[in-house]
């Protein structure tokens, strides 16, 4: 009780907090008591090998999957009872690693849907928001194309456009740069920096490390569902546990040689 009250009155308390988040599928523990917090306006990167549980962690934050144990706090409030669409409207918005375009409607309609529902806007205001989102991601010129006709790059941009049209306070990005050319990654980095400057807090999962470190203040690393490192990009990437997870035992031995 007391802590809840202090959190409400502490302006710089975390905007999002994971408390011992755990996810089990039968005998498999995909996330094991993962705790961390995100400060307002902060950009946090998430690293970890394939299957480490990064996507699952983001899904629990966004409410697309329920944790087996643990809590998500948003502005100090427990989000347990809130569904994914409800959290989205309150400002926790996630892009999917595998884009989920509404294939049989246009790019414009995809983003408009997000502006109406996630953004909670009506009429002209929703159209304004959708337009601005498309303009920011550079997808505006393709507004009239069916979303199903987009390339992977287009789909990823659409995923981001829709998320922006939901007007997030916390943006959860899952491998938004995967499969893009260096050129495209550069544009994306500029855009995400811009989103962040506008006051949005960001958690970004990315294997394209140079893109990630260009944006984030802090990194966390996961391996086999456990938080194995946390700190500035340099601290994390120089750490033993991280190197072992990413490059295996051999790399450590080679480094020692």
């Amino acid at each position, binding site marked *: 009780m007391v802590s809840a009250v202090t959190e409400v009155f502490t302006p710089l308390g975390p905007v999002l907090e994971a408390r011992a988040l755990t996810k089990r599928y039968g005998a498999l523990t995909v996330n094991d008591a993962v705790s961390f917090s995100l400060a307002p306006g902060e950009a946090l990167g998430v690293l970890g090998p394939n299957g480490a549980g990064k996507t699952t962690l983001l899904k629990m934050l966004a409410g697309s999957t329920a944790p087996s144990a643990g809590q998500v706090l948003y502005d100090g409030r427990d989000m347990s009872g809130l569904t994914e669409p409800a959290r989205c409207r309150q400002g926790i918005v996630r892009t999917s690693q595998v884009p989920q375009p509404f294939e049989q409607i246009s790019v*414009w309609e*995809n983003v408009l849907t997000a502006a109406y529902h996630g953004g909670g806007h009506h009429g002209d205001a929703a159209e304004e928001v959708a337009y601005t989102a498309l303009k920011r991601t550079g997808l505006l010129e393709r507004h009239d194309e069916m979303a199903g006709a987009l390339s992977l790059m287009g789909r990823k941009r659409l995923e981001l456009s829709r998320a922006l049209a939901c007007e997030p306070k916390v943006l959860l990005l899952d491998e938004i740069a995967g499969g893009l050319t260096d050129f495209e990654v550069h544009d994306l980095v500029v855009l995400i920096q811009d989103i962040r400057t506008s006051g949005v807090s960001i958690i970004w999962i990315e294997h394209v490390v140079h893109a990630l470190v260009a944006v984030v203040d802090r990194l966390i690393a996961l391996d086999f569902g456990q938080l194995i490192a946390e700190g500035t990009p340099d601290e994390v990437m120089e750490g033993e546990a991280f190197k072992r997870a990413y490059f295996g035992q051999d790399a450590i031995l080679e480094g020692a040689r």
Partner: protein
Amino acid sequence: MAESQIVTPRPYARTSSAALPLFALAVILAALITLPFWATGYTQRSVLEFLYFLALAQAWNLMAGYAGMMSIGQQAFVGIGAYGLVVMAEDLGINPFLTVPLAAILAVILAVPVSWLLFRLKGAYFAVATWVIAETVRLTVNANIDWLGGGRGRTVRSLGQFDRHLREDLGYWVALALAIIAVFGVFFLLRSKTGLALQAIRDTENGARSVGVETRRTKRIVYLFAAAIAGATGALIYIVQINVRPDAAFSINWAAYVIFIVVIGGIGTIEGPILGTLVFFFLRDMLADLEAWSMLIFGLIAIMMMLFAPKGLWGLLNTHRPVLLFRTARRLPERFAAHKEGE
């Protein structure tokens, strides 16, 4: 640079062609409204039947084609509407024609608790459950409720107060109103905020939830809408047929024919069920002599369609020569396009 390419219309987006479908629509509507004055009784009865099948098909298409709810139990609401007519007209003395909207309300009231049960299920389980519920209602009415006439049903005697021609004409106009409400109800719903949510759900339910769409609530709206249309149709059908028997009123044929119509015409479009209803009437006439075999043929045609033309006849026609009678698509407003070009 790329800014000048801002307006890249979809292939069919020729705005000048919008006037023609609108004119055609007006002519068709005028013909339908005045039909009792110039058509034969036989034609009028056939068109009446066409209209209520169209209403059922539009509602089922919205529910299955957009919201992904494959109900095979809509006959439950047709039957409830039919018995709603009996009870309201015979026992409560309400004007039979007035029972049509009341039957819609009755169906919605009963559909709410049914939806709590059904919405816990998905896919095939949902479908089977809708059928089980419909069968349960049919068997209950059939065997256990004397008041409703048991297996022999009841007759709506109070319809005797109307002259036969007046009854047929009024019935026809009610059917027309129902079909118009179904078609344009679906049209305006699809153009709304809820319509975008529905189309998003159709394409990916997870994606829809991730952009804030309340998928459950949206689906419930559609389920209740479909129940209302089926309930009203049930009352209407028995204003024309007068004798209400449980086996006929709760017959699975109501669901089977409607599914056939939507699959043949093209699921997930407004035009598909219209085309499908036309084809269904044509085929039914041709196969009339075959009796029970006709069901088999309908089934075979539907299966072939699902395998080789999953978008139905409308889908086949629309790839070659795109025409849209009902333009539900939302487009980038002019003010943004003009703004970009005028720089």
